[in-house]
């Protein structure tokens, strides 16, 4: 196992460190708010000569993703970072990046969308991009943000995948808090991600290709979309394979969904991101008080691990899904919709309830999580499940 250095630093810092260690050729970024300090620190690495990358500052996030697309199509390893309104402004380009099958890696600091104005954590930005064809990983901690970022490069560039990857970490809670993190040495990361060999580089003049052509009026647009669907379906095995390889290298676990105390659980909470820690903490307390509580954390949201989730939840009596984003007008939040759909084919279908929580950085107090487990305990013993979503802790 490679030597690892333990540091006390922020999520943003370790993602910047992961960027440097993955040695991208080009990093285009809009350097003004709502940008993160990921690109600020990366710019410093470039200025110090600690990474040999072309760092391109542009006039908007729309241009940032456009520059990523151009550089990636040319054949470069490309990384960038954004957040909140920045991701929203990239929207049409997100589709182009995945449609052109460009293995761009982007870190996203999960933060709320206006209006009203709010800069704090929720998952509205990333969840709004969930159908843009990107592979999406979510981190609970700064450590996972670092690990996911390194894995993302290999996942994106895998010839079976060739899709952009969004690696998400919770705004402020993970991005700005100091946490204890283990970093790998540069050589180990370089060895793990390897040299990028582009598949269809525009600058490979011996093998001329074109990207993003007109494919309407009887053209192959429809078949391109099916190919994208097949690629993201295939990416599940690649995420698992890369995760396993990284896990072997780092000694830290990785799975599409990570379960705690699920073996004999009667009730379970499904959750994404930093709140998984709060849920685990309270679940242990509930166990001590006699409730068989379990936790399922979703670390890979796209492709969504339906089969794994159904298997993990197959024998519980009641499930609560926590969503840090809305899907206004739908039956519940995005994670709830996926989870309920995953459980539909089970022989034994249990009640599934939905809570929207923590929007705009609303504090996820432990007693709120406890109240969800209390509700689940009631539902598991016969109290009818409420139709949600319920707004957890809203005044």
């Amino acid at each position, binding site marked *: 196992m490679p030597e690892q250095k333990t540091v006390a630093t922020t999520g943003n810092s370790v993602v910047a460190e992961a960027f440097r260690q993955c040695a991208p050729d080009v990093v285009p970024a809009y350097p003004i708010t709502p940008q993160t300090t990921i690109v600020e620190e990366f710019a410093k690495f470039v200025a110090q000569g600690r990474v040999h990358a072309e760092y391109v500052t542009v006039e908007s996030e729309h241009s940032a993703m456009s520059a990523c697309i151009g550089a990636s199509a040319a054949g470069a390893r490309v990384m960038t970072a954004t957040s909140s309104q920045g991701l929203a402004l990239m929207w049409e380009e997100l589709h182009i990046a995945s449609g052109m099958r460009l293995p761009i890696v982007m870190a996203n600091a999960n933060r709320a969308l206006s209006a009203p104005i709010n800069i704090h954590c929720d998952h509205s930005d990333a969840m709004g991009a969930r159908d843009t064809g990107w592979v999406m990983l979510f981190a609970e901690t700064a450590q996972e943000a670092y690990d996911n970022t390194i894995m993302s490069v290999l996942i994106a560039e895998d010839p079976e995948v060739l899709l952009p990857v969004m690696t998400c970490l*919770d705004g402020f809670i993970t991005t700005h808090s100091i946490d*204890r993190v283990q970093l790998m040495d540069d050589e180990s990361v370089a060895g793990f991600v390897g040299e990028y060999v582009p598949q269809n580089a525009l600058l490979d003049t011996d093998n001329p290709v074109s990207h993003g052509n007109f494919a309407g009026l009887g053209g192959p647009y429809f078949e391109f979309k099916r190919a994208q669907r097949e690629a993201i379906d295939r990416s599940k095995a690649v995420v698992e394979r890369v995760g396993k390889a990284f896990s072997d290298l780092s000694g830290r676990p990785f799975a599409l969904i990570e379960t705690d105390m699920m073996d004999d659980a009667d009730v379970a909470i499904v959750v994404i991101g930093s709140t998984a*820690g709060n849920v685990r903490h309270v679940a242990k307390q509930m166990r001590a008080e006699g409730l068989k509580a379990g936790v399922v954390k979703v670390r890979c949201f796209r492709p969504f691990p339906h089969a794994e989730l159904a298997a993990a939840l197959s024998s519980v009596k009641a499930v609560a899904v926590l969503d840090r984003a809305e899907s206004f007008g739908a039956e519940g939040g995005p994670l709830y919709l996926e989870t309920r759909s995953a459980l539909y084919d089970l022989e034994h279908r249990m009640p599934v309830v939905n809570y929207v929580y923590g929007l705009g950085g609303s504090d996820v107090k*432990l007693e709120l999580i406890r109240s969800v487990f209390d509700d689940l305990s009631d539902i598991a013993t016969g109290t009818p499940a409420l139709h949600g979503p319920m707004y957890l802790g809203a005044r």
Partner: protein
Amino acid sequence: MQQLTEIRWHARAGQGAVTAAKLVAETALAADQYMQAMPEYGPERMGAPIKAFTRISPEPIDIHCNIENPDVVIVLDDSLLDIVDVAEGLVSDGAIIVNTCTPPDAIKRALGLADSITVACVDASGIALDTIKRDIPNTPMVGALAKVTGAVDIDSVKSLLEKTFGKKFGQEIIDANLASVDRAYEEVKAV
């Protein structure tokens, strides 16, 4: 050792509370502890009241929420005592450390705190002006924290200061900061 120590910082933006919280976090790491240090972000203006939070634990820390029942409260500016409820949620055997010239029994009375709560006062601004020549009370307050709670070790604080400041500043500034930590450690008075 106590399982989990939760510290809440009250300061005005620009006083270095975040730097101090980072110093405490690094001291904890040096002692092979786990830690979290998180500022509470809002509209940032110099002089506005701010809060920051630090958790220290021998075990990995799972929770990610604000600290509502701190074991220790540190107040970097005593003008906040009139406008912020700094003792809010403080545990019954907790400690509050204030940068002030006012004696601790007067602060205890003014805040109406129970006898079980330790109140500690030190003129960290005065010490900072004497040693660092600027009113940056954050490093001396970490010295006071070491004395009052033992949550961090004074020698560890000083060696980290030397290491981190050594990269940016000359020996004179490092010595001034080390002296400020020592003086606050010696001069802090608790009731």
